[in-house]
C-alpha cells in the first residue's frame, strides 16, 4: 500500500528531525506553562466582600474561603460607598431567598473570584441545610415507624403521604442570584472565557506551522517531482500527509488540552472528550490549511510570512472580541474563519456544558473547511503533474 509507505516515510523523517519534534511538542508545553504561571498568579489575589443582610450561614462559609475577606454593612448605601471608594470588591445583598451581587469589576480576576467564592459558600451552606433537613426527616421517619406499629395499616398509609407532602417544600428551591457590574459586564476580560480560545488558537498555530513546513520541504528538495514521476495518485500523497501529520496533531492537541485544563485548573462543565474532539477537528483544518498555504511559499521564511497575515487575524474572530457590534462586512468575514466555529463550540462546552450533539452546525462548518481545503490541496498538486 502506497499510502502506508508514505506515512511510514514521513514519520521516519520526522522522528529523525529532532528540532521539528521539539517545536511540535516542547514549544507548546513551554508556552502553556508560561501561560499557566501568568494566569495562575492572578488567582491568589485577595478580595474583600461586603455583605448587607446576608444570613450568617452563608457569611460563615464565605469567611472560610482563602484570600476572601468579609465586611458586614448595615445598609446598602454604606456598602455602595465602600465599593466606589474601592475598599471592597463586591457587595452581596440578600433579599429573602434571593441574592444580588454588585461587582466593582475593575479587575476581572477579582470578579471571577468573588463569583466563585460566593457560589461555593452558597452551595456549602445549602448542602448543610439539606443535611439538617435530612436528619430531621430521618427523625420523622423513626417517629412514623413507631406510629406504624401502633396504628392500623390503612390509616398509617394516609398519614405517611400527608407527612411527606408536608416535609418537602422548604429549602429545595434554588436561590436566585442576580449580578450587576459597576464597570463593564460579565464578558469583561473573563479569563475562563479567554483560555479555551487561546488553547484552540495554539492548537491551530502549531499544527499550521509544522504541516506547512512538511510539504514545502518535499517540494523544494525536488522529491515531490520525483514522487509524481511514479504512478502514485495525487490524493494518496495528500492523504498520506494528512494522516501522518494528523497522528502527530492528535498527540499535540491532547497534550495542549490536558495542560491547559489541568495546569490552569479550568473548570470544564461539559465533556472533556468533546473539547478534545473539537480541537482535533480544528487541528485537521489547520493541517490542510498549512499544506495549502505552503504551495504559495518558496522557502521556510516565506511560510513564516503567512503568520502575521493569516494566523494572527484569526484570533480577532475567535470570540475574544464580541462581534455583535462590528460592521456587517466584518461579521460576514468571520464566517470564513475556522477559529470562530471552534472557539464558539469549545466555549460552549467548557463554560456552559453544551453537549457535542448540539454543536452540529460548528462541526459541519469545520468538516466543510476540511473537505474544501483537502480537495484544493489535491487539485493544487496538478501544478506539478497534470494527472
Amino acid at each position: 500500500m502506497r499510502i502506508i509507505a508514505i506515512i511510514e516515510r514521513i514519520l521516519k523523517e520526522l522522528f529523525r528531525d529532532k528540532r521539528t519534534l521539539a517545536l511540535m511538542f516542547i514549544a507548546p508545553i513551554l508556552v502553556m506553562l508560561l501561560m499557566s504561571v501568568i494566569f495562575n498568579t492572578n488567582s491568589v489575589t485577595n478580595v474583600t466582600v461586603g455583605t448587607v443582610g446576608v444570613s450568617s450561614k452563608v457569611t460563615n462559609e464565605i469567611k472560610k474561603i482563602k484570600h476572601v475577606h468579609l465586611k458586614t454593612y448595615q445598609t446598602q448605601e454604606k456598602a455602595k460607598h465602600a465599593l466606589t471608594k474601592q475598599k471592597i470588591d463586591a457587595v452581596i445583598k440578600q433579599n429573602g431567598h434571593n441574592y444580588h451581587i454588585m461587582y466593582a469589576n475593575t479587575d476581572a480576576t477579582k470578579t471571577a473570584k468573588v463569583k466563585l467564592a460566593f457560589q461555593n459558600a452558597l452551595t456549602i451552606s445549602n448542602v448543610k441545610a439539606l443535611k439538617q433537613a435530612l436528619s430531621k426527616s430521618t427523625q420523622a421517619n423513626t417517629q412514623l415507624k413507631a406510629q406504624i406499629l401502633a396504628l392500623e395499616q390503612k390509616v398509617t398509609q394516609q398519614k405517611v403521604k400527608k407527612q411527606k407532602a408536608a416535609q418537602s417544600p422548604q429549602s429545595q428551591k434554588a436561590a436566585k442570584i442576580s449580578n450587576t457590574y459597576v464597570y463593564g459586564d460579565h464578558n469583561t476580560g473573563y479569563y475562563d472565557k479567554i483560555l479555551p480560545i487561546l488553547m484552540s488558537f495554539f492548537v491551530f498555530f502549531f499544527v499550521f506551522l509544522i504541516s506547512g513546513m512538511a510539504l514545502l520541504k518535499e517540494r523544494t528538495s525536488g522529491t515531490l517531482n520525483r514522487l509524481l514521476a511514479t504512478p502514485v495518485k495525487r490524493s494518496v500523497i495528500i492523504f498520506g500527509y494528512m494522516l501522518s501529520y494528523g497522528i502527530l496533531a492528535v498527540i499535540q492537541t491532547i497534550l495542549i488540552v490536558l495542560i491547559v485544563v489541568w495546569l490552569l485548573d479550568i473548570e470544564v462543565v461539559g465533556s472533556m472528550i468533546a473539547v478534545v474532539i473539537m480541537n482535533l477537528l480544528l487541528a485537521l483544518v489547520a493541517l490542510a490549511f498549512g499544506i495549502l498555504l505552503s504551495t504559495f511559499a518558496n522557502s521556510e521564511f516565506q511560510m513564516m510570512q503567512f503568520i502575521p497575515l493569516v494566523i494572527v487575524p484569526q484570533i480577532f474572530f475567535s470570540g475574544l472580541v464580541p462581534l455583535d457590534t462590528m460592521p456587517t462586512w466584518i461579521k460576514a468575514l468571520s464566517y470564513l474563519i475556522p477559529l470562530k466555529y471552534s472557539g464558539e463550540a469549545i466555549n460552549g462546552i467548557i463554560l456552559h456544558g453544551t453537549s457535542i450533539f448540539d454543536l452540529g452546525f460548528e462541526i459541519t462548518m469545520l468538516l466543510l473547511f476540511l473537505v474544501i481545503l483537502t480537495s484544493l490541496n489535491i487539485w493544487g498538486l496538478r501544478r506539478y503533474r497534470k494527472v
Partner: protein
Amino acid sequence: MQTNILELEHLAKSFGKKRVLADINLTVIPGEIIGLIGPSGAGKSTVIKIALGMEVATNGTAKIFQKEMPNRQLLSDIGYMAQTDALYMSLTGYENLHFFGVMKGLKASKLASAIEYVAAVVNLTADLNRRVVEYSGGMMRRLSLAIALLGDPQLLILDEPTVGIDPALRQQIWAELGRIKMTGRSILITTHVMDEAELVDRVALLLDGTVMAFDTPQKLKQLYQVDSVEKVFLKAEGVETCES
C-alpha cells in the same frame, strides 16, 4: 511499421514570452539508447519534463508506449532520474530505494532482490544503511540512478546521470545500460560528456529549440565531416575549432 516507445511530435514550449522549444520531433524505438545533447539551457530537461507530463507543452504531443502523455498509469513503466538528486536526506539509501520501489508499484516479494541488484550496479551495496546526508555528491547521484533503474522499466529517462561519477564507475554504468538495451528496453539520456555520446545508438542535437540533427554518431560525423561527436557539437553551434 516500427512501434515507438517514445514519440515527440512538434513539441513547442514557451515560459512566458521566452520560447525554449520551437518544434521538437523525436522517436525512441525498443532496444535503443538515444543521446540528447545540446548546450546548457537548450531545453533538454524541458523536453524530458514535457515527455513525462511534468510540464505542459505549449503545442504538440508527447506519446509514450503509443499513449498520449500525461498518463499516470504509464509512469510505473518509466524510470526517471532528474538532473537534481531528489532524495530524502534523513533516510538511508536503502529506505530511499524501498520507498520509491513501493511508489513505483513493485511487489513486496520482488522489492528486496530488486534493491540488491540496482545497488550493486551503482556500487552502493556497502553504503545502503547509511543516511543520505552522509553521502558524497557522486554517491547521491548513484543512488538517484539506482532508484530510476528499480523495477526494470521499459523506458529509462536519465537527465545527466553520470555527472560527478568517476571513470571506472561510469564504465560500469554504461555496461549496465548496454545490458538493459539488449533486453529490448529503451533509454533516453542527456549528457554533456561527448565520449558518452559516442556510445549511444542515435544522437539528437538540440539547438535553437529544434532537433538540428538526429542520427547515429557515425552518420553525424560524416555529415559534419569531423571525427568526433564533440566536434559535431561544436560545429553545429558555430564555434570555431582550434584545428590547424
